[in-house]
């Protein structure tokens, strides 16, 4: 089936106006939804990322790029305290969600507000309906569950395809449908932020295109922080991009953060230029 690509990007003016720092890169926003300050992450005695300072503006798409092993996944996992699940992981520095330190919040609450979608679709071995209803049920939400499931599936652009298959096992869906189901599952608890760790790397081009369209649609109401190795994808979907790189002793650092046109059109840092043009990686 031929599908029309509707992913041509229309950039909207930033509602959260960036303030320029000393360099040309954007360093701060008026109302960041996520913020990391002086963040160091250790796995045991090994320093994985060093002194990361980053702010993520509300209802924007920010992509995190950089070579494998530079700490992108480690960084995004800090925002919803997923690194707490790794026994040897230790965090130094501060992480804020809407200006509140995430360690002053209940971890379950943090993960409802800051949802996550992974590289490989990971639906529960349950029905389509139960996958979406799981979060609200556990969270004790008493609203009309059918309504929540339908709305979440609609927001994830999956409703039309599964409305007659709600009772079927989610494993019967295609890879692209499973990934959109995972997004619907995250949306069901009404998050403010969705973290996406290479959400399209296991998908075919058409499924990828649908997820990209979805990301852009969601960004009117949800902030999206996405890790991707696909530069063109980052350029297509993001408003801002941050480039990380392993520096001294293979420790990940944030080397450049700016508007997407700058990062992919004319990066200021030579290392970013070499990475986005494919000359280091």
């Amino acid at each position: 089936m031929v599908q029309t690509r509707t992913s041509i990007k229309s950039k909207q003016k930033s509602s959260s106006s960036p303030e320029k720092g000393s360099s040309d890169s954007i360093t701060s926003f008026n109302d960041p939804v996520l913020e990391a300050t002086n963040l160091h992450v250790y796995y045991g005695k090994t320093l994985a990322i060093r002194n990361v300072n980053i702010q993520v503006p509300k209802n924007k798409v920010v992509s995190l790029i950089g070579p494998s092993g530079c700490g992108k996944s480690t960084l995004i996992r800090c925002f919803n305290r997923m690194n707490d699940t790794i026994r040897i992981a230790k965090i130094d520095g501060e992480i804020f969600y809407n200006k509140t330190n995430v360690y002053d919040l209940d971890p379950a609450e943090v993960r409802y507000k800051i949802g996550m979608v992974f590289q490989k679709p990971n639906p529960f071995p349950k029905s389509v309906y139960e996958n979406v209803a799981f979060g609200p049920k556990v969270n004790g939400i008493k609203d009309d569950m059918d309504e929540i499931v339908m709305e979440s599936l609609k927001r994830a652009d999956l409703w039309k395809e599964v409305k007659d298959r709600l009772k079927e096992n989610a494993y019967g869906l295609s890879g692209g449908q499973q990934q959109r189901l995972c997004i619907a599952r995250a949306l069901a608890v009404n998050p403010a932020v969705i973290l996406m760790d290479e959400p399209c790397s296991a998908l075919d081009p058409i499924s990828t295109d649908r997820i990209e369209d979805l990301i852009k649609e969601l960004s009117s109401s949800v902030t999206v922080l996405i890790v991707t190795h696909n530069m063109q994808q980052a350029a297509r979907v993001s408003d801002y991009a941050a480039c990380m790189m392993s520096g001294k002793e293979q420790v990940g650092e944030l080397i450049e953060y700016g508007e997407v046109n700058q990062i992919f059109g004319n990066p200021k840092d030579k290392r970013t230029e070499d990475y986005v043009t494919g000359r280091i990686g």
Partner: protein
Amino acid sequence: MRKYQGRKSLDLALLEIDTKITVLSSQVQAVFKDSMKSFYNKDLKRSQKIIEEDILINNFSKEVETQAIEIIRDQAPLASDMRKLTSLIFVSQELERIADYSSGICKINLKIGDEPFITKFEKIPKMEKIAIKMLKDSISAFCNASDMKSASKAARDLIVQDDEIDHLNSQVQKDLIKRMSRAPKLVKQGTYIIWIAHNLERIADRSTNIAERTLYVISGDSAVLTPYDDSFYD
């Protein structure tokens, strides 16, 4: 620290297309010089041949353009690579247009034919010399954009030369219009010679466009070096 690995197939493709644009520019320079030589010497046969062979330049320019598009398709370039490749497409078109102006000079030569020239050429050879230098310098800056400092200086130096050629063009036009208004029999050839000067001035403008593209490749800024000069109409 990550090791710089280069990008072999893209780097080779860029080298190949850079070589092609250099060859195209050499051919265009040769055609331009030849067209002026055939004009001064009233070598109508040579002029006719240049007009006929213009298609070869057109085809080569299209070949460069197609190759740049294919590299963009296959290599998904970004940042400086993307700026270079998109600019290459524009530059090959500018070179093709310069060859068209040269061909235009030859067409004017055929129109004047064996009729003796009504003027001793003083300013037109000066314009030719400047136009050739601008074309050479602009393409050299474009092909050496990696040497940012000297390429940037060369591109900006072209502004001064462009002013000079604009001034000469204006003088040629004013002188000939003055003479033509006194002696109407000069009007036909006088108009043709004004067109020759116009073509030389346009060749210089196209070279300035190449310099603007060079600055874009270097800095990412779309610079406009010279606003359109309409002082002649004042």
